[in-house]
C-alpha cells in the first residue's frame, strides 16, 4: 500500500511523558505486573488427573460420532456434504444404494482420519440429516495411525457410547429424519 493512499487513517503516536522518558517508572510498573501474576491463581489443568470442564457437551467439538435413527440404522445418507465442507479433507465416504426401501443412498463405508481432522465442526454444520456430530469426548489416543482412522462401525459405537449423555439435538430441533 502506498503511503499517500487516502484510505489510510494516520494516527499520531502518543508522546511519552517525563516518567515514560525516565524509563524507570515504566520499568517498575512492568515488574509489578509480573510480580502480581507470579502469585495469581494458575489456570493450567493437570489433564489426566483433572478433567477439563466441558460447559455444554452439545456444542463441544471432540471425537465424531455417526448417529443412528430410530431403528438403529446409520442416519447418514452419503451425500458427501461433510466431505465437501471439510477443510482438512479427512472424511472419505463410499456411497451406494441403500438396502432399505425408505432410503436411496447410504454409506457403504464412512471413514474419518481423526489425525487429519482439525475438529472445526464444519461437517456437523453441513450435514442435512444431523447424522454426523462432534461429541465431548476429548481424550482421543491411539498407538498407530491406522487405529486413528475411524470407520463406520467405530463412529457408530461412539454414538452408542455417548447417546445417553449427549442426546441428538435433532429431535428437539425438529429434524427431518
Amino acid at each position, binding site marked *: 500500500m502506498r503511503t499517500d493512499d487516502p484510505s489510510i487513517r494516520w494516527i499520531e503516536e502518543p508522546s511519552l511523558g517525563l516518567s515514560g522518558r525516565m524509563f524507570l517508572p515504566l520499568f517498575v510498573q512492568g515488574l509489578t505486573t509480573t510480580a502480581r501474576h507470579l502469585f495469581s491463581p494458575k489456570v493450567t489443568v493437570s489433564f489426566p488427573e483433572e478433567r477439563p470442564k466441558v460447559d455444554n457437551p452439545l456444542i463441544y467439538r471432540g471425537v465424531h460420532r455417526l448417529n443412528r435413527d430410530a431403528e438403529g440404522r446409520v442416519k447418514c445418507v*452419503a451425500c458427501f456434504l461433510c466431505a465437501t465442507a471439510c477443510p482438512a479433507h479427512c472424511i472419505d465416504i463410499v456411497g451406494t*444404494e441403500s438396502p432399505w426401501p425408505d432410503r*436411496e443412498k447410504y454409506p457403504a463405508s464412512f471413514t474419518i482420519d481423526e489425525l487429519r481432522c482439525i475438529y472445526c465442526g464444519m461437517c456437523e454444520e453441513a450435514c*442435512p*440429516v444431523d447424522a454426523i456430530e462432534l461429541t465431548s469426548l476429548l481424550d482421543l489416543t491411539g498407538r498407530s495411525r491406522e487405529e486413528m482412522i475411524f470407520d463406520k462401525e467405530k463412529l457408530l459405537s461412539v454414538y452408542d457410547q455417548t447417546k445417553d449423555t449427549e442426546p441428538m439435538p435433532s429431535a428437539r430441533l425438529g429434524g427431518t429424519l
Partner: protein
Amino acid sequence: MALIFVASCRMCLVESGRKDPQTGKVTMLPKLVPACQTPATDGTVFITDSDKVRQSRAMVEEDLLIDHPIDCPICDKAGECRLQDYHFQHGQRERRADIRPFTSRRRPLGDTVTLFVDRCVMCSRCVRFTREITGTNELYVTGRGSAEEIDVLPGFPLENRMSGNVVDLCPVGALGDKDFLYRQRVWFMKSHNGVCAGCSTGCSVNVDVNQDHVYRLRPRENPHVNQWWMCDEGRYGFHHVHSPNRLAGPHRREQEAFVPADWTKLPAELDAKLRAAGRVAGVFSPHMTVEAAYLWATYLRDVDPQARLVLGPVPVEGEDEQFKNGFTIRAEKCPNRRGVEEVIAHFAGRVEAMAELLADSELSLGAIWFGGGYKHDWIDTDTAERLAAAAPLLIVQDLFDSPLMQRATYQLPAAAFAERDGSYVNHADRLQSFAWAIRPPLGVREEASLAWLLLGRRGLFQSREVLDEIAREIMFFHAAAGGVPDVGVDLKVNRLAAEPIEQTARTV
C-alpha cells in the same frame, strides 16, 4: 440436428411484440411467449429481463418444484442441475408447497438407466431423444396433468446402444446412470477433454476424474464427429482402466520366471538388447497414439534401418450400426488405425499387416517389439507360440496378460487411453489431440515416453512437440501443424486438390 423445440418447461418465457415499420410504434403481446420456440423476424421485439418476465420465471420455477422432492444432497445431479441453479436464481425464501418425503420413487428403465419419478419436470427431452436421435421410441409419457410420468412399455425396456445419453440430456436428476449412480459427487470431479477409444468414430468426450480415478465419460460437443452424443459402449468402456488385472510394473524373464525390473535401468538395457539383436520387427497396435507410433517407428528404424513395421490386428466386431440421426457406432473397435497406418507407411513405404508377418514361412528375426496394448484378448496361443519361436527377444508392452505376454522376454505395462498424451486419427481422417486425464498407476510407463527415453531425447515427452515434428515430416499430418483445436482437424484438407471430387464430398 439436435432435438426439436417443444417449449415444455416454460422457464424461458419472455415478453414479445411487434414494431410497426411505418409508425415505429411497438405493440406488445399481452401474453408471454417461450423464447426457445418463438422465431425472431424483422420487427419483432423481445424483452427478456422485465419485472414481469422475472416474476413469471419465479412462478414457473416454483411450479416445477411443487412435486419435486428436496433431496439435492443425495441426488447425483446436484451441482450440475439446471433446476438447482434456477432455484438459486429465482427461488422463494420458503417453500409454499408441502414438504414431501426426502426420497423419490424410482424404477429402472433398462439396464443402464434408473428413473427417479418424482424428480422429473416433464421436459420430455429423453422421450424426444429416443424418437428423433435413435429412432427406437422406447420412452413415452404416460398419464395426464399432474399424474404425467415418463415410462417404458412392459417388455420393451430402454436398451438401445445410445441409451446413456438420456442421462446427460435430463436437466434434473430424474434419470440416473446406473454405472455412475452414487459413485461420486460432481463437484469433486475435474473434466478433461478426451477422445473415446472405443471405436474408429473417435467421439469427443469429457473424462470426469477425481484423484486419478475415472468416474464417467460424457460426450463433448463436436459437430464434426459426434455432435452431442456417444454410444453406451464407449461411455461405459473405461472400466478396464481401473481393472485390478492390469499389469503393474515391468518384468524380465529369467529362467522361465518373471522377475520385477527397474524402470530406471530398463531403457538402457532394452536399448542394448535391441541393438544386439540383428533384424528387428515392430508390431503397432491400432490403439497407439500417433505420437507413440512415430517415436517407436523412428527408434526401431534407428536400431535396424530395415526394421519391419507391422500393423497389429485390427479388432472388428459385427457391423457398423447407424442411427436415425446419422450417428454411427463403428465395427472397428480401435481409435487410431488410420494414424498408425500412415506413420508406418511413411517409414516403411507400405503397411504390412500382422497376417503378412505370420504368413512368412521362414520368419526369423532377432527381436520383435509389440506396443500399444489392447483392451481385450487379441492373440491366440498358436500365434503367440509362432511369434515367440521366430524371435529370441520378445518385448511386449500391453495392458493385460495374454498368451504372448506369457512368452515375452520383457513384460512392460502399457498406459490406458485416459493416461496418455497424444492424438488419434478417426475413420474419416480427423485428428484429435488430448492430454492425460489421470496419471498411470505406479510402475506403468506410457509407450511414447519410453520411446522418447530410448531415442535419448532431452526432458520429458511432449506430445505437442512430437506432433509438430510429425506434421513437418509426414505429408498426411501436415494439417496438424501449429495446433489442434478442441474439435480436431481434418487431415484430408491437404488432399482436396489431389483426390477425385466424389470422395472428398462426403467428408464434411
